[in-house]
């Protein structure tokens, strides 16, 4: 062997060694120095989640009757993974499936296309869920078809028929309760964006449906439960290579409400009756609301709004035509807690309380002329009636405006009259705020209207915001209106001119309007119910609540909502006593006498106040009827109102009477608590029980038919 050979072998050896060294250095560089970035890339590559939504919780009434439940629907799903393993990519299976489901083939293929892919139809036709999730192609399939599909598995590779929970409204006693319950809708883009990069397994996903309004929205997180999540390892071809983790879904919690389905149905019917009464008198009677609360807890026992809609319309998605109709009818929002109206004379309890606070005699006599003139304006009584000198109590009974005008003028002058400063006292507005007007009641329903109180401060701030517009309008002189109606244009221009220069001034006329619940004051019927409840219970302003408790699908009480006193109305005790002594007189010998004629008031005295609030733009007043009963031992506050409905007494009064009759079990003049719509004659204090199998037992041990929906919830919940 030559030296040359040795040398060249040595060179080869060194070359080999350096090649190996290169490999080690490169490996070290990739793995140790830049490894982390690749680790992230690998994780993105391989993990896919399959989400099985949990069965949504039920909404129960106080007796355990389901107001919202689930029914089972047979759903046919297609798993594209399996389908694509077929020789023809599953085309034959789809054709067979279309035939048995009696659907066009195109309908199924369109459904199987991923949203955003070429040729895909817009959602909800295309599939916007995970590629690894079986896609539902038909719901409410009849059992026979489902069985055929399951039997002929070889013909239907990748097709499955399974039971799915769909929202259902059992409507005990034909209740509607649409505005209380709310509805579901697909999650919005904003909600998804709000989740950010959350990795919480219970986060909202693009395929989720969520509560849009009402209780479904308020308690969405509780009702929704925790979805079942299977984490799959997936290869490049999209084949599932293994299961990395699996979490079974946890069924959503049940919401037990203080609503009584039976009472709710009575209240809904009576609200419609009141509206019809308005129509009979030839009034528009466009909308209305009714509220029943427990004065000792603030719990809402019934709450209705007119017009309403059928909550089941949302199941399976509403068409745009239906949606437009709903929006047009203004049925979507609740007048009971989202509508704002002038309270009219029902506000007088607050005016009285303000007068009492300011030291005016509650038992003195006051003049009740047919009209008063203040600041060049004439303020009249209803139908210009006059009663001479009457007591304050009588003024409330007959709803004499001029007595209150007199009080308002005195209070306005005491505060400084026209020379009062910005921060001069404003006793009526302050008392209204004490009773919770102009602020949210805090009810556990979304989108509550706050309202406002006519006051010196509101006028000032409103003027600051509007001054520029008013001044501009005054200068322009309403040229458009002038073309058709020069007189109206003159009136508008004069009004704006005045507003422009001293629209911030709290005039005597403003004080007079405010004292009878007119002017800028706007309230929700629910706020008025809480005002009368506070009068009834001696000054406790409760936060109204619809939910009493959250109970898990397996029966544990997760949370009980105790009554919450929002604030105490700091009005002299004597004034409160005066109000409680006076209001029953309204029913016995005042403005509410007619509707309660023949009502056993000796056994169930009813404290009430009627209201006929004037509204600009209409010559028909808003009919109000506010009340509580029994007046000697208050239990319920009932408020009803109908817009453009006429007087409180004629339109709403008879319906409120009917509500009391059903609450107390009155027929004719006999009172029998056992005939009450409330089981046991009073609001339930204990909770219904959710059994481990999902059935609900009412607090009084009666089995309430929950139906199949309940049993699905329980099965999933236990699993």
């Amino acid at each position, binding site marked *: 062997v030559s030296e040359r050979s040795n040398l060249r072998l040595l060179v080869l050896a060194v070359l080999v060694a350096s090649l190996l060294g*290169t490999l080690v250095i490169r490996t070290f560089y990739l793995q140790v120095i830049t490894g982390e970035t690749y680790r992230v890339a690998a994780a993105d*590559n391989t993990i896919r989640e399959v989400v099985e939504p949990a069965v949504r919780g039920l909404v129960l009434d106080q007796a355990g009757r389901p107001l919202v439940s689930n029914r089972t629907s047979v759903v046919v799903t297609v798993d594209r993974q399996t389908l694509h393993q077929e020789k023809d990519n599953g085309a034959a299976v789809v054709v067979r499936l279309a035939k048995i489901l009696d659907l066009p083939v195109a309908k199924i293929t369109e459904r199987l296309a991923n949203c955003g892919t070429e040729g895909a139809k817009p959602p909800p036709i295309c599939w916007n869920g995970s590629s690894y999730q079986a896609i539902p192609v038909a719901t409410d399939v009849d059992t026979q078809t489902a069985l055929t599909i399951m039997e002929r598995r070889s013909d239907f590779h990748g097709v499955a028929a399974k039971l799915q929970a769909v929202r259902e409204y059992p409507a005990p006693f034909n209740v509607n309760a649409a505005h209380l319950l709310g509805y579901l809708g697909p999650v919005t883009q904003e909600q998804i964006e709000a989740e950010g990069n959350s990795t919480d397994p219970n986060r909202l996903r693009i395929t989720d449906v969520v509560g849009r309004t009402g209780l479904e929205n308020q308690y969405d997180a509780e009702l929704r439960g925790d979805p079942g999540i299977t984490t799959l390892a997936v290869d490049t071809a999209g084949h599932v290579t293994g299961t990395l983790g699996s979490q079974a879904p946890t069924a959503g919690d049940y919401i037990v409400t203080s609503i009584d389905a039976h009472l709710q149905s009575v209240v809904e019917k009576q609200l419609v009756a009141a509206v019809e009464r308005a129509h009979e008198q030839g009034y528009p009677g466009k909308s209305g609301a009714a509220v029943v609360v427990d004065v000792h807890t603030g719990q809402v026992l019934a709450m209705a709004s007119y017009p309403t809609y059928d909550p089941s319309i949302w199941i399976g998605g509403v068409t745009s035509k239906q949606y437009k109709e709903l929006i047009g009818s203004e049925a979507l929002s609740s007048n009971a807690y989202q509508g704002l109206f002038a309270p009219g004379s029902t506000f007088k309890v607050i005016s009285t309380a303000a007068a009492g606070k300011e030291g005016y005699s509650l038992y003195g006599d006051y003049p009740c002329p047919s009209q008063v003139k203040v600041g060049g304006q004439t303020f009249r009584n209803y139908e210009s009636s006059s009663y001479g000198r009457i007591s304050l109590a009588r003024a409330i009974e007959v709803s004499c405006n001029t007595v209150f005008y007199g009080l308002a003028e005195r209070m306005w002058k005491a505060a400084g009259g026209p020379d009062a400063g910005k921060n001069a006292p404003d006793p009526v507005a302050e008392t209204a705020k004490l009773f919770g007007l102009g602020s949210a009641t805090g009810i556990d329903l979304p989108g509550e209207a706050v309202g406002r109180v006519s006051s010196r401060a509101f006028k000032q701030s409103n003027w600051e915001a509007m001054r520029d517009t008013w001044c501009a309008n005054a200068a322009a002189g309403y040229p458009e209106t002038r073309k058709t109606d020069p007189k109206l244009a003159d009136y508008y221009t004069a009004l704006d001119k005045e507003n422009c220069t001293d629209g911030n001034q709290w005039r005597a006329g403003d004080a007079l309007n405010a004292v009878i619940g007119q002017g800028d004051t706007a309230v929700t019927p629910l706020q008025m119910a809480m005002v009368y409840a506070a009068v009834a219970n001696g000054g406790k302003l409760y936060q109204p609540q619809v939910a009493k408790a959250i109970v898990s699908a397996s029966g544990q009480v997760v949370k009980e909502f105790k009554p919450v006193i929002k604030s105490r109305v700091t009005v002299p005790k004597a004034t409160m006593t005066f109000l409680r002594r006076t209001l029953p007189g309204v029913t016995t010998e005042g403005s509410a006498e007619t509707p309660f004629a023949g009502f056993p008031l000796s056994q169930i005295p009813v404290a009430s106040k009627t209201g006929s609030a004037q509204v600009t733009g209409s010559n028909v007043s808003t009919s109000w009827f506010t009340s509580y009963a029994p007046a000697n031992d208050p239990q319920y506050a009932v408020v009803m109102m109908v817009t453009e409905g006429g007087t409180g007494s004629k339109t709403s009064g008879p319906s409120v009477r009917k509500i009391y009759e059903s609450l107390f079990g009155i027929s004719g003049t006999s009172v029998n608590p056992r005939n009450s719509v409330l089981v046991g004659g009073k609001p339930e204090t204990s909770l219904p029980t959710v059994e481990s199998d999902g059935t609900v037992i009412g607090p009084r041990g009666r089995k309430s038919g929950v139906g199949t929906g309940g049993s699905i919830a329980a099965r999933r919940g236990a699993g």
Partner: protein
Amino acid sequence: MSTIFTAERAVKPFQRGAVGGYWRDMDWILLIAAFAVTVFGSMLVWSASKADMASPNDSTSFLKRHLINVIIGVALGFVASRLDYRWLRAYTPIIYGISVFLLVLPFVPGLGTRVAGARAWIDLPGGMTIQPSEFAKVAVILMMAVLLSEKRDVGSEPRDRDVLLSLGVAIFPILIILLQNDTGTVLILGSVALSIIAVSGARTRWVIGLLGGAAIGILLAIQLGLLKSYQVQRLTSFINPSGDVSDASYNANQARIAIGGGGMFGYGLFQGPQTQGKFVPVNESDFIFTVVGEELGFVGAFVLILLLGIVLWRAVMIAWHADDLYGRLVATGIVAWLAFQMFENIGMSLGIMPITGIPLPMVSAGGTSMMATWIGIGLLQNVRLHGARAGA
């Protein structure tokens, strides 16, 4: 040719001598290292094939087939280590002839299988396939060694005629393999031929000329578009690691994600998401290095390279200590073959070599490669044992 046949009559195929000497003089470090690499490789093959969709019911079916190949390979290696030198030299032309014949077979319609664009497999009954280019490597080494070590005075360089002849012996199969689109094997055979000619002591102008020829060949290949631009880019990315390989192919990307993701200690055997998700193509053979990289991390990858290094170190030592030129050239050829094949295979997983479909010796699945490599190990032992006997 007649001399060969007379030699056959005179020589028996196997060496005589005590079996005790065989076991005593064997290179144990080489054997143990080769075994260790094979066992290590089997483990990686198991992990890579576990989640294979081809055998969803039995996660070990692929491994079982691989282990059968290992057993056959080791047995062939044992046979190769026992062959008598003179017999081997006498029969080398026949071995070479059969190998070339097998190389042509895949072109016969009905016999060949195209795998990933390379027509390099022969179908056997029962679903087995063989890759004749693997055996061709052994045959070329043996044939060149015979030609370059024959009819010479000790210490003299090979005549130009011998060099030319041995070049022809190498180029003929290289051309066939080029037609099969198997560029990886071409590169390896070229390196093997160059190494053998260099170590044979051929005049320096031969070595320089061949090196220059190879360089021109590669440049021409790039120029004519035979190498894809990303392969060129990847080659240059080795020189300039920060260079962006944005248009690198999917395979290369997935391979690097797998290896990079392994970090220092890896995800653990059978736990690599890229490996188990089959994100890296053919990771039981061509991209097997991604399995060790991802699942056992840098530590595992280093141990594997170290074991391969030990095999190469022992092979170089056997070449160095060979008592005749024939033995040295055989050992040198095997060193060059294994070293360049390892570098090409691991290098392509690391993104520093063009992607060509060649297995990692003794690690990758693939029966023919496993058998050929163990024959190579056996031949190395044979060279060493020959020297030990001559020295004794």
